[in-house]
């Protein structure tokens, strides 16, 4: 019997990780992506490998997902990660007061933390604001977004998955009853259209998931929520720095290569394909960032960019959960052959893929279990050397 064919739309973090998982469970996988790997939200993340500390007080489901997946990614893809840890620092009384809830939250979410005095903290990170009152050491990290995704894609490819980049979904093919049977695509590199038949189509387009779902007459409650990030040309810190308080604007600094990246903001947007960077927001990153690391004020700006998060569920912006959800459109709208995965964080990409592959496999009658927790991923370079 031939393997069931699954077409995944989107080669961001979720798409490549789902391809990896499904290829291991015996599916014939084709990933289509209108640009190159990670050209949407995934590429533009600040690269913070979350320990979950940021969500430990208000969004514990996400926090637990983060710490669990953080530890797994460190193990399976060390070639894309700076595993140097993170610090949550308190600069005023409000931060100190939040510290109590933070300790309880981290304990409830099994996130290991270590309380440090200002002297201990400044010894580790001499460029932090010397006025700091308290800090917690936490297992955050930094990852290289493209190479993280390519490691999953390379491994998926070595297990038979095909990656067709610069191939855009134009229309979903349906049977007479509205069930999805494939995708009509346009190969943008060659300029030619084509029909791809599929037993199941997975919509892994993150912030764009609503647009693709609409092609099938479906609906996904995704709220595209952009945020700004600004890179500065000096590596002031070795660890990811968070403000010890309720998550807000410009309260994260992520070191990467010889830079630091300060993020972020949170607002609504209409056109997802081009979100301009706003001057006020760059200024805000400078102000808020230099509260944590004063040296940023004198640093040269290296780049500024917007990334659009795919948040799910009700509410808006900061108050929305960072967890993810997989929708079987058979259950939500009576459309068979079509599954959407969205929401989540880069850090939880593998878990998102596991959940999606579970749904796909149960629809296809495949019983093989997920094995991605333990499997070491190939080098990103092998994505380019492995035949498609």
């Amino acid at each position, binding site marked *: 019997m031939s393997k069931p064919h699954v077409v995944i739309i989107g080669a961001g973090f979720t798409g490549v990780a789902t391809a990896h998982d499904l290829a291991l469970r015996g599916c014939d996988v084709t990933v289509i992506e209108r640009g190159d790997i990670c050209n949407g939200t995934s590429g533009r993340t600040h690269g913070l490998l979350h320990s979950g500390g940021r969500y430990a007080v208000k969004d514990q489901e996400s926090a637990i997902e983060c710490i669990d997946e953080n530890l797994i990614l460190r193990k399976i893809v060390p070639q894309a990660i700076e595993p140097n840890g993170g610090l949550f620092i308190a600069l005023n009384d409000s931060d100190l007061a939040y510290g109590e809830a933070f300790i309880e939250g981290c304990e409830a979410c099994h996130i290991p933390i270590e309380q440090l005095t200002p002297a201990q903290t400044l010894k580790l990170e001499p460029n932090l604001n010397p006025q700091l009152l308290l800090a917690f050491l936490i297992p955050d990290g930094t990852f290289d977004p493209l190479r993280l995704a390519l490691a999953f894609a390379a491994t998926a490819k070595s297990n038979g998955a095909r990656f067709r980049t610069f191939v855009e979904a134009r229309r979903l093919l349906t049977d007479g009853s509205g069930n999805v049977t494939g995708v009509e695509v346009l190969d943008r590199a060659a300029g030619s259209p084509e029909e791809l038949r599929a037993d199941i189509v997975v919509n892994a387009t993150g912030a764009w998931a609503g647009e693709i779902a609409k092609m099938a007459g479906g609906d996904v409650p995704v709220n595209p929520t952009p945020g700004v990030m600004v890179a500065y040309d000096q590596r002031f810190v070795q660890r990811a720095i968070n403000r010890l308080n309720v998550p807000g604007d410009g309260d994260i600094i992520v070191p990467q*290569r010889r830079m630091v990246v300060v993020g972020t903001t949170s607002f609504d947007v209409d056109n997802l394909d081009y979100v301009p960077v706003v001057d006020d927001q760059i200024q805000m990153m400078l102000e808020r960032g230099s509260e944590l690391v004063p040296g940023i004020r004198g640093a040269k700006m290296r780049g500024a*960019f917007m990334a659009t998060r795919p948040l799910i569920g009700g509410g808006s912006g900061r108050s929305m959960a960072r967890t993810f959800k997989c929708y079987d459109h058979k259950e939500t709208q009576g459309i068979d052959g079509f599954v959407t995965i969205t929401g989540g964080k880069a850090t939880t990409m593998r878990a998102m893929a596991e959940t999606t592959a579970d749904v796909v496999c149960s629809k296809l009658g495949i019983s093989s279990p997920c094995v991605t927790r333990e499997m070491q991923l190939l080098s990103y370079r092998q994505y380019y050397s492995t035949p498609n």
Partner: protein
Amino acid sequence: MSAIRWDVTFVVYRAKGDEASHFDTFKLSIDPDEYVLDGVEKIWAFEDRSLCFRHACHHSTCGACGMRVNGVEKLTCITLIRDVTQDGGTLKIEPLRNFPVVSDLVVDMGSLYLRMDEVHARPVVPVPEAEIEKSPKEWPPDDYEYLRLSDCIECGLCMSACPISATSPTYLGPAVLAGAQQNGLSRNPSLLEIVDAENGVWRCHSAYECTAVCPSYVDPARRIMDLRRQVVSERLKRLFNRPKPKIAAVQEANR
């Protein structure tokens, strides 16, 4: 985005399938404090959905968006429009050289990654201290404090700018030789055969174009010069530590 707008003409290289390549012109009214990549992305978003280009991180950590801008290799995500043209000016956007073009501004850099693997260039490197040296000569000892993503983002700019790569496709190229230098011949003696060869370290003519275009502080040219020193020293080492001739070794064993 500020209120300032410049009129900039983007002249963009196009190539699809078997069709002959040509240039398309797009006139944009654009904030000069946006980046060249933003302009290219805007052309795709608002003017021509068929334009193919590579990009991911938008802050110089991934190396995907290398292009030639007015004839010079640039990482377009950190190249301000203000720095490469003027109000009323033109930006000629072309794909990197010395790699096969896939479509429009997209090139296939597979050969670079294969060569980087060949010299075991590592993507995440250990650093010995919080203070980051500007140009580490060798791998630090194993008692490092931190692990850090390496400086080289494998963007291919140096491979495109190198005049030797342009005429000798089999020349390993600046990024690859710099990767070998960082690995160090004393740490990896097997690299000697790869770099001390026809397509290796002696092919470089010291044009320093690689260092001029490198967006990531790698300084490939200096590293190639240092790798030559390493090659000579490794050769001398081998000359004076030659294994004993076989007969002598057998006699010794029988003694």
